[in-house]
């Protein structure tokens, strides 16, 4: 059993505090993804869990042990690094078995576990090669194999896919997910890519500037973002965010258009708000995701159309801002074309303009 529990964890470099008291509990066998823009403290947090960075304040527990003062080797963790960090002078087999050898395992046990890991990751053919003779994807698999042979309590991944090209990244994402289904272990995974976070995580932790902004399942953070930052960060293309003022129970946009607010929105007359809606909630009539939803019709001019095959992203303007809509089952659209858009009123997000916090 290995839960990981962070309590008020702080990281300071001299006077500069970059992680400000993070609380987080990761359950046994849970796959948790820390996501956020670069410099948000997610990698630092992971490295503190690994023991590669000192903890300036608070406690980190793995299982029922406080690990604050333990060196990495005593924490029974494995880590996959962004740059793979293979041992360049060792063959794949030696790379995989190195941790076991250091732990004093017998030859037979090492061979058994290395072969097992190689089988899981499809590395059988490559065991006698040196890392320099492997492709990026193969190196990444060796790095993962090195992590799994040790049967650790916790897997730590530090942006493991960001050095790979887009296609390989997609493949490896699936492999990591399969791996977790097969080798049930607690995983903490750091990425700046919200797609990786959405596809891999049991729960997502969204971080910004050393704070946790929201913790939730992928659907929670997608459907109920707690503030404009999370709303803009999760989802691709990102959520449209438009300033508005509450006028007679409606949101009045800069160009005078009035959008009815959801009944549960906690707003008062005259309050400056930010109205949020995802591109998939803003589609030409007859091309929307939820055809039965309450909708507001808006006639807009298309500025740019980006056909992606199964859908077309349409760029237009609303409330004086550029917004994106998504046309499902698309037909060809040319720039300058006037289309009748429907805005899904059941899926509107309302945020306080000053604090950015959700008002639903």
């Amino acid at each position, binding site marked *: 059993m290995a839960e990981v529990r962070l309590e008020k964890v702080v990281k300071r470099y001299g006077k500069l505090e970059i992680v400000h008291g993070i609380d987080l509990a990761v359950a046994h066998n849970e796959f948790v993804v820390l996501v956020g823009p670069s410099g948000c403290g997610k990698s630092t947090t992971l490295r503190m869990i*690994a*023991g*590669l960075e000192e903890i300036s304040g608070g406690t980190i527990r793995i299982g029922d042990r406080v690990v604050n003062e333990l*060196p*990495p*080797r005593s924490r029974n*963790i*494995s*880590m996959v*690094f*962004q*740059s*793979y*960090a*293979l*041992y*360049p*002078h060792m063959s794949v087999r030696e790379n995989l078995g*190195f*941790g076991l050898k*250091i*732990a004093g395992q017998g030859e037979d046990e090492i061979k058994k576990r290395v072969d097992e890991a190689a089988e899981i990751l499809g590395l059988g053919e490559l065991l006698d090669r*040196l*890392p*320099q*003779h*492997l492709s990026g994807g193969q*190196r990444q698999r060796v790095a993962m194999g*090195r992590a799994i042979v*040790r049967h650790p309590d916790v897997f*730590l991944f530090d942006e493991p896919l960001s*050095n790979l090209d887009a296609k390989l990244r997609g493949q490896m994402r699936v492999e990591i997910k399969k791996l977790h289904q097969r080798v049930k272990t607690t995983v903490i995974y750091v990425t700046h890519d919200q797609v990786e976070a959405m596809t891999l995580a049991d729960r997502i932790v969204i971080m910004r500037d050393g704070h946790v902004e929201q913790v939730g399942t992928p659907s929670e953070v997608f459907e109920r973002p707690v503030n404009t930052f999370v709303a803009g960060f999760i989802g691709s293309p990102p959520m449209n965010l438009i300033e508005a003022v509450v006028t007679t129970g409606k949101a009045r946009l800069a160009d005078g258009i009035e959008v009815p607010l959801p009944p549960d929105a906690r707003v008062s007359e005259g309050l400056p708000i930010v109205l949020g809606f995802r591109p998939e909630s803003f589609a030409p009539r007859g091309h929307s995701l939820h055809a039965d939803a309450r909708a507001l019709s808006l006639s807009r001019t298309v500025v740019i159309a980006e056909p992606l095959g199964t859908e077309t992203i349409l760029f237009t303007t609303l409330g004086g801002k550029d917004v994106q809509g998504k046309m499902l089952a698309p037909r060809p659209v040319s720039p300058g074309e006037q289309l009748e858009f429907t805005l899904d009123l059941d899926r509107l997000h309302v945020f306080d303009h000053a604090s950015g916090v959700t008002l639903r």
Partner: protein
Amino acid sequence: MNFLRLPRATPYLLLLPAIVVILGVVLVPLVVSFWTSFTPYNLTKPATLFQFVGLRNYERLLGNADFWWAFGRTILFITIALNLEMVLGLGLALLINKVTWGQRTLRTIMMFPMMFSPILVGFQFKYLFNDAVGLVNNALFDLGIIQQPIPWLVDGSLAPLTIILAEVWMSTSVFAILLLAGLMALPKEPIEAAKVDGCNPWQVFRHITLPFLMPFVYIAMTIRSLDVARAYDMVRIMTNGGPAGRTELLWTLMTRTGYNNSQMGMANAMGYVSILTSILFTYYFYRKLVSARAFMGGAQ
């Protein structure tokens, strides 16, 4: 003269000054000295320069015990000095690599011994280890460790040690600098991976840091083996090959043969044996370097 005006003559014309200089400075002396090693050339009898005797000098060398002692002593000197400098230099580099404040200053200070002329280092150590007025003996006296002066430079077994000490003092920083460069170029991730993989600090050093450093070690070894193989100045000052030839190295023997005994032909033959040895050392270390580097790359 027409050829000189052709476009394809331009590169040769432009290279001509360099070629002339190289011919004059390198090739001619090389050919002449190589020729003299096949003659009984004696500085006092110029005519002997043109008397070809084939391999006679080399044959005599092979049967000459003094030469072989000097040869063996030089190899031993290289082996001991290089290994000591390697170990000490590695230790220094590891320590300095840990320093976060004032590292640049320390690096500069570390290089001071390299900046002195070897002759001066020789004089300095000769003075330090002088049996009557030397600092070392005086200190040992005052501390009550010895009652009789130790004849550092006169005793047959202490003299070579003293010279090695001076050599190590002067040149350890060469190793330290080169290995420090290696340490600074060391990628961070494999070391962190090893820590996570269960290594204690010694195991990280043994399995990750040291293999990474080996190419740098061999580069330093190559450079230094060439340096030490032609050790002359310091030995000349400190003991001049004595006592009773116990510190006679190849180059002190060579100079004695060439200039004191005027047997330049013989001295040049020794020179060529010594150069051949240096080439063998270089080749050996270079092979080691290439094979150590073959493993590198592919960490990222």
